[in-house]
């Protein structure tokens, strides 16, 4: 009872008109509006984060799926980044295997190799003697026992010829191949470019499909993020309607949801970066040792700073875009008017 009387008394204190004047002055100037605008955005940024953290399971599920989608796309991109220099250097790594006639001894082969080395189209030669060929064959093929049963070594001496640096295409290799073929002690010359060509066409295929695969993954990511925003919008329907009744613009209502999309995109982008980088580190040794087999000078490329920024920027944009699309569609149904 006491408080009620008090209520009425306070209500009749008339400081209001004075306050209105103050308000006009304080709220009027541009800087104040700017500060208010910044406050509103900072508020929405952290408010939306708070909302996401309030349903941690849902948010984590969304982030996990988003991260997987983005990590696949990013990993694929990284694969292509690594393959590009590889395919370039492969062009020059074609080599010729010169099989000598069976009766040619290791010593004769060495002499022949030296004469071949004089050819200006040749940069290097390596002689694989009969014994070494047998040892290699035994260790790589697993048919060692069968060979042993033969009693003699059936393998010929092989000279591998590395063409000069200026020879890049198969067509340029042909005269050299021909010249070697003419030599008396040579049985056959084999050009090992087929596998290079195959590899190059595989790389080309991967590069071509990169766009399509990434577009599909982007669409998937849009749907995942969009669905989460849609749920969030649904659970805050009452709030949206009340805000509209109080005079909120669509921009104001959309803001926290757009920021929620921003958070989802940003965090999953960062997570995807870590996932791909950690996977690369785990695979690093095996990949590098495989690559080293083919000429030695390959280095695994990780994300550059620019790539990293691009990745996170794109995933963030994706999150905002998903949120925006859902809002355009859904807000039409949450109207008091």
């Amino acid at each position, binding site marked *: 009872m006491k*408080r*009620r009387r*008090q*209520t*009425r008394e*306070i*209500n*009749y204190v*008339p400081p*209001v*008109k004075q*306050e*209105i004047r103050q*308000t006009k002055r*304080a*709220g009027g100037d541009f800087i*104040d*509006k700017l*500060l*208010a*605008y910044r*406050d*509103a955005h900072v*508020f929405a940024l952290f408010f939306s984060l708070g909302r996401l953290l309030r349903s941690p399971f849902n948010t984590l599920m969304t982030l996990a799926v988003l991260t997987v989608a983005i990590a696949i796309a990013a990993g694929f991109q990284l694969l292509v980044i690594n393959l590009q220099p590889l395919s370039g250097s492969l062009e020059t790594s074609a080599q010729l295997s010169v099989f000598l006639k069976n009766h040619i001894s290791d010593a004769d082969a060495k002499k022949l190799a030296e004469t071949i080395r004089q050819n200006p189209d040749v940069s290097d030669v390596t002689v694989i003697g009969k014994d070494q060929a047998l040892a290699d064959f035994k260790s790589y093929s697993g048919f060692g026992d069968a060979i042993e049963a033969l009693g003699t070594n059936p393998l010929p001496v092989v000279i591998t010829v590395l063409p000069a640096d200026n020879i890049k295409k198969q067509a340029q290799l042909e005269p050299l191949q021909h010249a070697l073929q003419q030599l008396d002690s040579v049985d056959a010359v084999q050009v090992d470019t087929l596998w290079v060509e195959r590899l190059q066409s595989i790389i080309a295929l991967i590069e071509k499909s990169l766009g399509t695969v990434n577009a599909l993954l982007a669409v998937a990511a849009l749907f995942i993020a969009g669905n989460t925003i849609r749920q969030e919008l649904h659970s805050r329907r*009452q*709030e949206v309607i*009340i*805000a*509209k*009744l*109080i*005079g*909120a*613009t669509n921009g*104001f209502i959309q803001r926290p949801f757009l920021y929620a999309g921003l958070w989802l995109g940003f965090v999953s982008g960062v997570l995807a970066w870590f996932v791909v980088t950690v996977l690369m580190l785990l695979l690093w040794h095996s990949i590098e040792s495989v690559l080293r087999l083919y000429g030695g000078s390959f280095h695994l490329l990780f994300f550059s700073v620019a790539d990293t920024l691009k990745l996170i920027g794109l995933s963030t944009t994706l999150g905002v875009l998903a949120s925006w699309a859902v809002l355009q569609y859904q807000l039409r149904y949450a109207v*008091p*008017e």
Partner: protein
Amino acid sequence: MLKFERVSKRYHETGEVLTDISFQLKAGEIAFLTGHSGAGKSTLLKLIGVMERCSQGDIWLDGENLCQAKQRQLPFIRRKMGFIYQDYKLLQDRTIFDNVALPLIIAGFSYQEVLRKVRAALEKVSLTGKEKKYPYALSGGEQQRVGIARAIVNRPPIIIADEPTGNLDPDLALEIMNLFVSFQQLGVTVLIATHDISLIDKMNHRVLKLSQGRLVSG
């Protein structure tokens, strides 16, 4: 301040709910809108808030025709009025402070000003000290005072209330009505819809009476 000119409202499902309504409220005037349940009181108030559109006629607020208002103007029109509802329409998962602050945040006030104005509004409805509480922790009368604080916090020139005391016992109802009268005495225009005739009789103010969608007195 507020002027209805031959306003009608038709719904697809229920036909004509308001017929040929004309009246005028001067700035700083207070009036009660009464009539039996289903007479069209809520519909009339919704036309003012442009939550529904007029079928015919014009509604003028401060020289602006609400019946012709464009969709993107609605937020700014609504900021000029303080709406109060029977069910309070508070955000249950936000504190009293946040609820009252919402119109200010929407209107783009800086945090400093929000703080000051929310405190002033809560003081006016005698809820000082309850800023950090949540609506469910308050009584019905207190929740309605929060709704009122939210309606007045941005100092709109007109306050519109739809059955503001519908859920309250008579003592509290009278207290809330007196609160509205106090706003009117400070120069605010007030329009209150209620079917509580006994309450209106006690107050001795202008009464607009609706019957079957027509204004029969006022």
